[in-house]
């Protein structure tokens, strides 16, 4: 118990059996971490999102060969880093003002579409609002719920470790964590534009 990697393994097996929705859950879980990782190599936010997307697609297509010798996220991060490095290398080889960037109709469509939802003031405002909402909801939580959440999310403790630290049964830890998340989630659901 307490191994979040087991959840990934479970989802991976589901994808390997043909469940595309299970991969959707993996993308939702890791998308921010992968974009942040890729952004260390690819500075342009639009490109970073494209590269992260490409990395997930590559991972999906390579999943039949994933045997689970390493953790899924380690494997995914390796794919993301390689994809980012390849992108940078390709970008360095390309001429500075390439026709494909602005001279082609399809690219113009893609470019404007990306501008509409990435790195716009609205997107940044939404992010700020989400961050403020989560932090203030955590502040408003009862002490025992807040402690359980912090020990789990920041310290990465298992339920058993949290139970020992907080001197309570494991079942109580489980309940506190759920109540903490559910309370914050209720506030998040009020934010317009957040799926």
């Amino acid at each position: 118990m307490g191994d979040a990697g087991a959840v990934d393994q479970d989802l991976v097996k589901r994808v390997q059996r043909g469940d595309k929705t299970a991969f959707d859950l993996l993308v939702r879980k890791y998308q921010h971490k992968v974009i942040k990782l890729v952004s260390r190599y690819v500075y342009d936010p639009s490109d970073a999102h494209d590269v992260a997307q490409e990395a997930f697609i590559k991972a999906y297509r390579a999943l039949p060969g994933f045997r689970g010798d390493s953790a899924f996220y380690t494997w995914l991060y390796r794919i993301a880093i390689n994809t980012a490095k390849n992108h940078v290398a390709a970008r360095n080889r390309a001429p500075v003002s390439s026709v494909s960037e602005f001279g082609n109709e399809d690219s113009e469509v893609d470019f404007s579409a990306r501008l509409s939802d990435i790195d716009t003031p609205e997107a940044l405002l939404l992010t700020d609002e989400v961050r403020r909402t989560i932090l203030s909801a955590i502040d408003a939580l009862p002490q025992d719920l807040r402690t359980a959440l912090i020990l789990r999310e920041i310290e990465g403790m298992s339920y058993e470790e949290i139970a020992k630290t907080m001197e309570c049964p494991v079942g109580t830890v489980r309940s506190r964590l759920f109540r903490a998340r559910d309370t914050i989630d209720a506030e998040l659901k009020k934010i317009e534009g957040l799926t």
Partner: protein
Amino acid sequence: MNDKTTQSGSTKQQLGQSIDTDTEFAADMSAWMDGELTGGRARLVAQGMTADASRRSQWARYHLIGDVLRDNLPASGIVDIASAVRAEIDKDESTPRVSRMPLAGHPRAWGLAASLILASVILVNSWQRPGSSTVDVAARPDTTAPVAVATAADVEPDRADTSELDQYLRNHTLALVDTGEPARMLPYLSMAESAVEPVSAIAP
């Protein structure tokens, strides 16, 4: 509950809510995402999320809480690339299923198989050499695999060796004949004779 809980109306509503199916599901999902739920209930959570888009959104928001706490959000902010990725993988004609063949997708297993095939080829080749020609395929009626017949080229190096030996013995024999000495080399000569060709033609 302490005072903080009662101060917030929405918080009170959330915590005082009766346990219904959705709440139970969300509680199980919370434990599952931490790796603290296994067995049949874990399967139910996974199946439930596959079937319900709103539960998948809830899963994403639960992870978002952790991302914010760990400062894992990218500088460009919150994004959702899941739908774009899904649209792209939906274009794939087939889902990348793991083959039912036991070796599929296992490079090490394929390497082992290749090694076994190579070892078999080497073994069969060694059986076909003249030195080990005592393997009588005809005497093994259960042998169904085709066995290659050794060609002249296969045995040529051995023949060259015996020819050289034969030539050496001939020279010695001729020398002995010329000098009238007793043929001390004759035992060796007889061995070579049986292996290659009769030397009686050159013997005195």
